[in-house]
């Protein structure tokens, strides 16, 4: 048995390519307001380790549906031979320019593909659709109608009524807004069209769900690696007698900041690649407003934590360290370690809130001096970087591949993000603290990857 193939067909410019782009997570599909952008069929196979489980076929829109139906009616014999008439039409007119689109779009259907008929639920139903639907009915292939509201979904009701006369299954599917679970639901629904397709599609659904988890984990790893690199970033320059201290100082400060930005951008690119987004036009404040943005106190307040929260997280980290001491003393310190640690952590959290980078003048062992910037010890820095990365991931993971246009990252991600759970917050703080102290061992990094992946998983359920 061959694997299921679904031909996405419909009137020109009604979102067929958007549907395919979203379902195939492929942003290489041209989506244009201009009708007739798709002139040839394009196949989007879903493969698992090279084994095809199903395929989508993007097709050109109907251009001369009434003429085609007219020809078919002229050659009609009995209802049981309708599919044969459609096949004869394609064979007769293949290669002719006049029916190029119709032959192209009908070919996969007469080869056995299921039909996904796409209409736009934001415009009224019209009688020009009837010949198209009639032709598709003649093919006798399993079919489903998808109402894709390109604008405000004002005409869903009339469409459902009209489509219901031609298709057993009618679903509303917003190609641009549909979340991952809705896409999965739609795939499952494809399996209802024909019994033999169900097993293959169920397996495809399982694989896609596993792959989604893998993507989350890969993205979490990219962010954890990026964070570790940013926290250990150090820039140094030997101070020669001709150098002016102040100018060199600002130069290495700038290099340090540039290093941070480039690490952050690399992390963004990696996350987008993980989710197969290759064309995102990203707009993020940090790129142009570095001084006022990433490193300023107001940013800590916006992206990271308010000073009071900094104290709280500092206290949490301090208390955790103190508790380790208590544990090693077998509790003989009556938890004084935890209390003292909390106090010290809180104070450090407060005092170091605004200092991102300190430039130090150090002696070189064999003579001379050097200026060293970084690594940063700012307590809220990892929170800020993580919050920005989390916001970016939140948007990228939800962004459908049919959506074109820039990805604008808000300056207030905390408004757009669901609040972190208490467990995730304290676990993140613990891992950040380990990273800040330079103990980015495998346990720390993998632990951080785990907690970031858990945060992303919680974000997806929101």
């Amino acid at each position, binding site marked *: 048995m061959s694997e299921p193939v679904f031909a996405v067909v419909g*009137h*020109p*410019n009604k979102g067929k390519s958007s549907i395919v782009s979203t*379902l*195939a*997570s*492929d942003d*290489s*599909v*041209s989506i244009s*307001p*201009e*009708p*007739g*952008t*798709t*002139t*040839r069929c*394009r*196949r*989007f*196979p*879903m*493969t*698992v*380790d*090279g084994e095809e489980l199903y395929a989508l076929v993007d097709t050109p*829109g*109907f*251009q*001369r*549906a*009434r*003429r085609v139906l*007219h020809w078919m009616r002229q050659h009609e014999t009995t209802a049981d031979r309708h599919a044969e008439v459609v096949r004869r039409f394609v064979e007769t007119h293949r290669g002719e320019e006049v029916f190029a*689109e119709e032959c192209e779009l009908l070919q996969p259907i007469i080869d056995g593909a299921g039909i996904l008929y796409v209409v736009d639920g934001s*415009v*009224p139903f*019209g*009688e*020009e659709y*009837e010949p198209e639907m009639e032709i598709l009915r003649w093919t006798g292939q399993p079919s489903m109608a998808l109402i894709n509201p390109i604008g405000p979904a004002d005409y869903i009701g009339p469409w459902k009524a009209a489509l219901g006369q031609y298709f057993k299954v009618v679903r509303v599917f917003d190609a641009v807004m549909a979340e991952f679970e809705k896409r999965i639901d739609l795939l499952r629904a494809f399996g209802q069209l024909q019994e033999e397709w169900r097993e293959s599609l169920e397996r495809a659904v399982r*694989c*896609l769900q*596993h*792959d989604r988890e*893998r993507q989350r*984990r*890969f993205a979490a*790893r990219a962010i954890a690696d990026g964070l570790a690199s940013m926290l250990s970033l150090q820039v140094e320059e030997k101070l020669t007698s001709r150098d002016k201290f102040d100018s060199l100082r600002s130069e290495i400060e700038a290099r340090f900041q540039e290093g941070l930005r480039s690490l952050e951008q690399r992390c963004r690119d990696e996350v987008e*690649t*993980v989710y*197969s987004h290759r064309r995102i036009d990203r707009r993020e404040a940090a790129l142009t407003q570095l001084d006022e943005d990433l490193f300023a106190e107001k940013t800590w307040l916006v992206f990271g934590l308010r000073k009071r929260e900094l104290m709280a997280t500092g206290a949490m980290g301090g208390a955790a360290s103190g508790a380790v001491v208590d544990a090693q003393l077998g509790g003989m310190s009556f938890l004084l370690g935890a209390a003292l640690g909390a106090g010290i952590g809180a104070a450090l959290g407060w005092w170091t809130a605004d200092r991102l980078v300190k430039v130090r003048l150090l002696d070189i062992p064999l003579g001379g001096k050097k200026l060293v910037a970084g690594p940063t010890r700012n307590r809220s820095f990892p929170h800020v970087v993580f919050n920005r990365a989390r916001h970016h991931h939140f948007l990228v993971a939800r962004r459908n591949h049919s959506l074109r246009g820039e990805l604008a990252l808000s300056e207030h991600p905390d408004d757009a993000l669901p609040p972190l759970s208490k467990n995730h917050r304290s676990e993140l703080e613990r891992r950040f603290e380990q990273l800040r102290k330079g103990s*980015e*061992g*495998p*346990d720390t*990094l*993998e632990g951080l*990857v785990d907690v970031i992946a858990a945060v992303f998983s919680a974000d997806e359920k929101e």
Partner: protein
Amino acid sequence: MLADLIDLVVQMQRDAGRPEVALHRRDRALVAALRPHARETRSLLLAWIDALRRTEAHLPGRALGAIYRLQIVILVLLGLVAGWVAAAAVYSYDGSRPVNVVQVLAVFVGAQLLLLLPLGVVMLPQRLTHLVPGFVAVQEALAWFSPGQLVRLLARWLPQGIRQPLTSATRSGSLQTRQLGGVQKWAILFPAQAFAIAFNLGALAGCLYLITFSDLAFAWSTTLEPDPEQVHRLTGILSAPWARFVPDAAPPLDLIRETLYYRQTGVSDLSDPSRWGQWWPFLVASMITYGLLPRLALLALAGGQLHRSLRRAFAEIPGVTLVLDRLTCELVSTQATSPEVPAPTNSADQTLTSASPTPLDAGELTVVNWSGLEVADESLALQCQAAWSRQIIGVRHAGGRSSISEDEETVAALAASPPSSGIALVVKAWEPPVMELIDFLRDLRQSAGSRRLIIVAPTGIQATGQLTPPQPADLAQWEKRLRRLQDPALSVRPWSQGGAS
């Protein structure tokens, strides 16, 4: 396993800059060939490395592993020679002065026990050394005196092709280096113990050779002038481990008394020269117990720890989970396998500019409702008349539910209308201009003549049937498409309630 670990680190370093999807594809293909025998994490990684050795450019692990083993052999040979030479020096006897038992014990027992102390410090786990400030530095400094460092020195002479990938993978400061630190420590301590064992074996062999093939005389002598009974207590402590099994190897008090040697007078006159050789079982047993056996135990410990650290490094080295994810996660692809065929560009789109609507010089108009715009004929006629201030002489239908022959009849009827009258097609602006409409317009032009005014009026509509102006984006599509017809008597005139357009 050391060779496998080196190859794992080098391969991860090589993969670091490569696209993840390509790596995933490569690794899943390798895994497909491994099925079903490699499932456990380490076996999977080992099988992966093994498969890569066949497909990737040279991986240095096996060569380095062989060199490491060769270095151990060299260290063992050096140890044997050094031990033999040391024994020959310490047991040197030319008949003028007996071999000093104190000297033998100092070199082969005292010094060896002392050397165990720094070794113990070096072997301490990191979690303990971190608790004492400065202890790590001491540990690192002491490690430099290990004979195993010879491995490092020799590694500098490796060929560039082998040395380069290893040094780049383990460059200082990288996470891998830190994780490999444990492996490196035991990989150096293990040959050090092999060297020490070889040294003791060499010394024992040298000692036994001299005992067997020459007549050695032993005595004990020291300027500290200890009481023989104190010396007996000391030898009693030293020989305690074997005294019950080998009583001859525990020197009795009278032997100690009789073999006390003074520089000026030599040994006591009462001493029996046959007893001068009776020290050797004690000395050999001491060398075995305090020199060889501890090193054998340490070799086993270092070997075990090296094995453990290698196993741990396999599971914990940074980046290995990424490799495992690639190996275990299915490679899912949903994207197109071929590039998109670009839509043909129409030269008319570039060359034709948007013309201003042709003036409505026709006195009368026949209106065509294209594709069943939901408005009654009378209402459509009235609205058109109001919008364009022209007499509407009829309303016809085409497209949509009309059949092809009905369209043909409409074209014929329109062509037969007064030549001075124009034809206005009112179309749904939100629907794109499909070829059916274009065909209709071409047929109409052919039948009605090239000069007959044809207006295409894209319009919106309200639920009440009231026509509304089109969306600018929709209108642009209509204008663009109809411009391609290059028909000077065809005009796109968007619906406008005021009729100003």
